[in-house]
């Protein structure tokens, strides 16, 4: 069973897959969570990495232990001494220190960057060596690692591990240069304050809050090592104050979104990673309004929803619901940067949460059916205010779309036609039917509605007959327990539109008929 890591206001929680158990997690010392922006998380190995809201990036393991992504490095150079002991080491030696986070088995979870270099090497003459002035970490580290050079060398090798965070000197060591190990010290580097994060090809990719136009990436296989040289500009650098807005992760491609353009990372290693142009006409508004499903990235831009997949880049909302995004009649366009996506893999639908026109919260959502490429909505709920969404897994490890609310609860789908205890407010508006003669007045006869026989419930059917500005008539009541019901005559006019509304339970409409439609003439 896989739990969800959830940020609730300025706290972090672990919620079990069945939702029955919620455990508040303890944050590391000096780590706070911001509440004015969304957390951005990814998996790396056996850890969830969290950025954007923590004051420094943090990780959560399967036991609910929260750690910093990497400890802060030592801030003072070491001193080497000979401890007064005779030995076999002769020559000039230097040493550097890092801090280690270890798991309960002693495996390294994270390593800090190196401390400062020693200015002057220690000259040994048939001595044993030990280290003095060992830095103590302000973070909760389990050990320090000391690297030293060979005699007169410049390359550092792993030398001593010092347990705990209390000792300021190491024990004496007599190991020769040949005995301290064959592998040079690894490339390290402190992770920056990241605004967004992605996991791709065995590395973490992120954006520094202060270097907004550059993609930073970790060393291969290491979530904690972020050398400064691991940086790629996503042009055009300096073109706006937003910088990189989103990562668009596909199997073999990593897209980099900006407000008005998209780039793509190519290459396989530090030596050949580069950023090439994907589009100069569309971009991504935020990480939350970008989602990957079956190797296709769907993202919201100013004028609609786009898909970047094996068939290239195309808009999936044009020709159907473009007006939702380009007019002010439906949604609050100034809040598009706050929109967020979810995916329901069993219903094969994408869900995009948006703010209704004039609203200051994302209180509506629209759905895109990936099977028949149709759009639905806008939907709404009276049960809660949606605020976030992510994919969970139920007790049987099946995907379970989850939606976070504003009042401490997370929501999941259910078959009952209600949101918690609130009925669904259904509102369907048909096209203006014209029976292929839009300019001819017609008599629209008796309306017959067919639907599933329900145990109870009524649906109001409100006709409009006339031209496009026809007023709504008094509603007609369709009794759902009848299944098929013949209703009254609808009226006269060039066009007919019907609106079906109900808030009393399930609804399943098969269709409707008007069996005698007579043309009255052109008037």
């Amino acid at each position: 069973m896989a739990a969800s890591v959830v940020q609730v206001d300025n706290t972090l929680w672990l919620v079990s897959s069945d939702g029955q158990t919620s455990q508040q997690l303890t944050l590391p010392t000096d780590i706070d969570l911001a509440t004015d922006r969304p957390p951005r998380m990814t998996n790396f190995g056996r850890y969830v990495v969290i950025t954007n809201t923590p004051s420094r990036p943090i990780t959560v393991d399967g036991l609910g232990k929260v750690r910093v992504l990497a400890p802060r490095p030592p801030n003072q150079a070491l001193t080497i001494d000979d401890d007064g002991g005779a030995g076999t080491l002769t020559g000039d030696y230097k040493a550097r220190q890092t801090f280690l986070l270890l798991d309960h088995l002693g495996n390294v979870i994270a390593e800090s960057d190196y401390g400062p270099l020693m200015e002057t090497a220690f000259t040994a003459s048939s001595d044993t060596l030990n280290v003095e002035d060992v830095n103590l970490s302000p973070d909760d580290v389990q050990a320090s690692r000391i690297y030293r050079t060979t005699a007169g060398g410049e390359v550092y090798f792993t030398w001593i591990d010092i347990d705990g965070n209390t000792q300021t000197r190491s024990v004496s060591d007599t190991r020769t240069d040949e005995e301290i190990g064959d592998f040079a010290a690894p490339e390290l580097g402190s992770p920056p304050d990241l605004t967004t994060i992605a996991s791709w090809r065995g590395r973490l990719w992120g954006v520094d809050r202060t270097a907004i136009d550059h993609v930073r990436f970790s060393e291969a296989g290491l979530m904690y090592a972020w050398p400064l040289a691991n940086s790629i500009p996503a042009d055009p650098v300096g073109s706006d104050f937003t910088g990189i807005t989103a990562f668009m992760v596909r199997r073999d491609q990593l897209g980099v979104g900006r407000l008005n353009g998209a780039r793509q990372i190519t290459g396989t290693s530090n030596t050949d990673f580069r950023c090439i142009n994907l589009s100069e006409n569309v971009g991504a508004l935020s990480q939350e309004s970008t989602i990957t499903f079956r190797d296709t990235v769907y993202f919201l831009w100013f004028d609609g929803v786009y898909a970047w997949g094996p068939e290239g880049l195309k808009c999936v909302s044009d020709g159907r619901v473009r007006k939702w995004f380009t007019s002010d009649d439906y949604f609050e366009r100034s809040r598009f940067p706050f929109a967020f996506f979810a995916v329901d893999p069993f219903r094969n639908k994408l869900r995009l949460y948006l703010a209704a026109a004039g609203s200051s919260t994302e209180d509506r959502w629209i759905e895109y059916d990936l099977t028949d490429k149709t759009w639905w909505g806008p939907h709404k709920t009276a049960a809660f205010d949606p605020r976030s969404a992510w994919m969970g897994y139920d007790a049987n490890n099946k995907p379970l779309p989850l939606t976070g609310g504003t009042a401490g609860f997370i929501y999941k789908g259910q078959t009952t036609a209600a949101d918690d205890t609130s009925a669904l407010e259904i509102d369907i508006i048909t096209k203006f039917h014209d029976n292929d003669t839009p300019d001819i007045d017609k008599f629209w006869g008796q309306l017959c509605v067919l639907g599933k026989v329900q145990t109870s419930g009524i649906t109001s059917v409100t006709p409009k007959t006339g031209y496009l500005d026809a007023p709504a008539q008094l509603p007609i009541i369709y009794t759902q327990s009848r299944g098929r019901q013949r209703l009254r005559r609808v009226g006269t006019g060039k066009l007919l539109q019907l609106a079906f509304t109900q808030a009393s339970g399930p609804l399943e409409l098969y269709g409707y008929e008007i069996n005698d439609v007579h043309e009255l003439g052109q008037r």
Partner: protein
Amino acid sequence: MKPLNVYNIGEKGVNVDSSPIHTEDGELTRAQNVEHNKSGARGGVVNRPGLAKHNDDDLGSLVLGGFTMSYPDNSQVETATFWWAQQTSGGANVWYRSNDLYASSLTWVLVDPPSAWQADPPVAFATLRHYTRMVEHKGRIYYPGTHTSGTTAPTIRVFNGKDDYQLAKILPETTAWIHLMKVSRGRIFILTLDSGVDDTSWVSRVFELDPETGYVTQIGAALDTGYYATALEVHNNDLYVGASRVTEGNVGRVYRIRLDIATAWTTEVNMAAERNNITELTSFKGLLYVTTGSNDSNGTNKGAVLRQTALGAWAVVDTAVVPTRGGLFQAMTIFEGKLYTLGIAFTGGNLLRSSSDGTTWVTDANSPDDFPDNASSVLKVVGRRLFLHGAGGTSEFAHTTTPTGTWTTGIGPGETGGGGSGTGSTLMTLRP
């Protein structure tokens, strides 16, 4: 005039882009809280699925975001399946299993596998204190299999929850007994006792077991005669081994060797007079601690907890308060960021003491008030619980998440006659 028949309602979803005249029959201009009814061939609409609360507990505020781990959540997993390695009165030592250790009605069932474990020690060693001779490591139980002391080599068997098999042997064939096993820094170590003519010729050896390959590697030479190894810990890249006396007059001793590098043991420290037993070594917050016992009747230097202050230098940080004899710190472990010790026959009973810094110690619980006397042999941590259990023939156990609070107790399988001063009967689990 043809009738109006619309049975593909919603077939094409919402269309607000086309003009009202050019919208098709199967299109809607609004579809609030409905979706395409896929059970129909062409259309129909049905209400969208509802939404229900997922979490039982109100998290209290705005849910800003979440992410699901791609691996199992172990924070809430508490296995109730435990195995008890039980010594019997004669015959092979057996295993019992309980699937409901945390339930109110505990039941133990005799099981095989795991197969029988190491028989009683050779008669010559019968008076020595017995220690935990099996370990859990990465979801497996490693335990000594049966052998004929002095004739066949001791074996290491591994149990994966379903089957067990022999993984390794400790050669030579004359190796008498596996005396202790421990996991330290993720590595499995084994202490053996080789037979000789008498206690002046018995020696302990130290091995490391590679659980992947079954290779057993001896570390350094055999320890000195007159001692048997009874504790072990990896600390600051060194392997420390505590040894208790065998020969009258010897005191407890700690050895040290640079792990993976050196080949010769260094005597780290000899205990003060009368501190004859070394029962546990633990690395805690960067410093090394040892627990000792004193079983001489004078009790001048009582059993104590000592801390290494420098190589070769140790200081007492906690002392047994005992009415008679020397007292014995039986066990030591780390739980929830504190160091815990279990002391036997102290004033006030068997005491569970704790320290956050290794310097200031308090008593958290005692027997018989909080846990049974028969649960006072072994300290271990399982998941989020601290366990005590006995090692005798009528052993009991106790566990808690809060040592200063309530303890839950239970009785082991219990075989009559399998007693003695600790037989090594052990409570084991395959925890995640």
